[in-house]
């Protein structure tokens, strides 16, 4: 599939663990990706609320993308785990030429609430294959103590 240019930033190779999960683009497999998100956030010592938020945000991103994915295609979800911060990028090959991630939905608003930063991504397709659409989000480990 067409690459959305992940990892995006220059400092990504220092002290960063990368985990990539690919599944069939099916809602029935999203629980597995949620479990990976929870696991990584817990190991990165996120506070329990931040873990819960990330798990829900990753679910939302994956569910949104699975909805527009081409039949029999794959969902790719990459986690960049840093000390106080996880960046997640999920992408699929879209089924329709004009497919895009809709940002005026309830789900997107929830995503914006849960994540510290979220963007919709799109790479145009070619004559043979459709566009690649994705969602990138950032989540910090939690609030500081009182």
């Amino acid at each position: 599939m067409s690459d959305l240019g992940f990892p995006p930033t220059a400092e990504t190779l220092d002290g960063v663990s990368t985990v990539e999960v690919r599944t069939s683009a099916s809602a029935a497999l999203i629980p597995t990706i949620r479990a990976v998100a929870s696991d990584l956030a817990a190991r990165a010592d996120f506070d329990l609320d931040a873990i819960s938020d990330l798990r829900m945000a990753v679910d939302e991103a994956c569910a949104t993308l699975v909805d527009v994915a081409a039949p029999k295609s794959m969902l790719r979800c990459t986690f960049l785990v840093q000390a106080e911060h996880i960046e997640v990028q999920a992408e699929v090959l879209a089924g329709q030429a004009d497919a895009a991630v809709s940002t005026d939905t309830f789900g997107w608003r929830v995503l914006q609430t849960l994540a510290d930063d979220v963007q919709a991504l799109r790479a145009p397709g070619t004559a043979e294959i459709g566009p690649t659409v994705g969602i990138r989000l950032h989540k910090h480990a939690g609030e500081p103590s009182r």
Partner: protein
Amino acid sequence: MVEPPAIRSLRTGDLAAPAGPSLGKKPEALVLDSHPPLQTSIARLTGGAAVLAVVGEIDTLTAPPLEQALRELLDDTGADVLVIDLTGVTFLASSGLAALIQGAHRAADRNVTLRLVPGSRAVRRPLEVTGSDQLFDMYEDVHSAVG
């Protein structure tokens, strides 16, 4: 100690298989399906309360049965008090949240405030962080919710 209410009637909804994915796509037969069905049951207690108990993960595949169960709960016009017991829920996605919010609005149309027992952080947190907890009367446990 308060006598626990006896059940007068009970209906359960068990999905044999989760609802298919979005329009236009045939549900695929998967060898690995990490997605168990959502269990819902509605019980009418002798004290006058109706309790919808939900067990499982609520996401895009299982939000439709939740919506259905909420409709049934709201259809019980004879109940004094409507309670949603989510203590068995281990994950709540935005589609589940949307179903709950819609339920709260439908109830408000009839001047009823739904009582919600969130249980774990997985339910509590999304409700708090989106401010949706304001739409319900929240209770710590089912016993106090049925009141």
